[in-house]
């Protein structure tokens, strides 16, 4: 195996595998298609109003948390 034995190599891969990054570090970059970008822009300029479920959730929050 040369400079490193097969067993050590396996242990190394096992270690790297166990340390697999499951949580993406800051900053997370989200790439959008042209269509998505256009839609995001439209929403930024004219955001949709909160729906009834949002309002109900807010009422519940105020009741529970204050």
């Amino acid at each position, binding site marked *: 195996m040369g400079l490193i034995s097969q067993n050590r190599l396996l242990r190394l891969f096992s270690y790297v595998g166990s340390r697999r990054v*499951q*949580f*993406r*570090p*800051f*900053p*997370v*970059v*989200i*790439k*959008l*298609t*042209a*269509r*998505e*970008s*256009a*839609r*995001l*822009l439209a*929403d*930024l300029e*004219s*955001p*949709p*109003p*909160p*729906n009834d*479920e*949002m*309002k*109900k*959730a*807010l009422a*519940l*929050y105020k009741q*529970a*948390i204050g």
Partner: protein
Amino acid sequence: MKIVPLDGGVHDRSNFDCGQPSLNNFLQQQAQQAARRYGSKTFVLVHDDDEQTILAYHTTLFAQIEPGIIPQGRLGRNPIPMLLLARFAVDRRVQGKGFGKILLVDVWRRAKVIAENTALYGVVLDAIDDDAEKFYQKFGFKALTDNPRHLYMPIGTILELLGGQA
């Protein structure tokens, strides 16, 4: 009932079970460490008289969206800052009691505070399954076109609900 930052010395993470192993594991093994390293922030919902038992939790951090073809002079070429709702879970023993709704409002409230102090376009998330996707869509989250589970809500909608200004 209150929503407070996760504190491994107070909150019992080991008994939390939302039915999704990845979300359980994150809370039990990574959330505290990620917060310590300023990588993400986790808040837990607990009863006033039982601070140990975690009823639900959410984890957020910043994300940025590459603007793509957005015309110059409107959003410019700069990436669009978003609050990423990275983890969101309710313990299975208390599901259906509205705790998810309460926690979601807490995310909106924190997004509002951020938007009042720095640039924030909205909240973005990846729903973990079909049920989660339906849950978020019910509250007005919209799907991006790359993946129906990739959802977002503009900050303007949140500010209108909570009565704030960016």
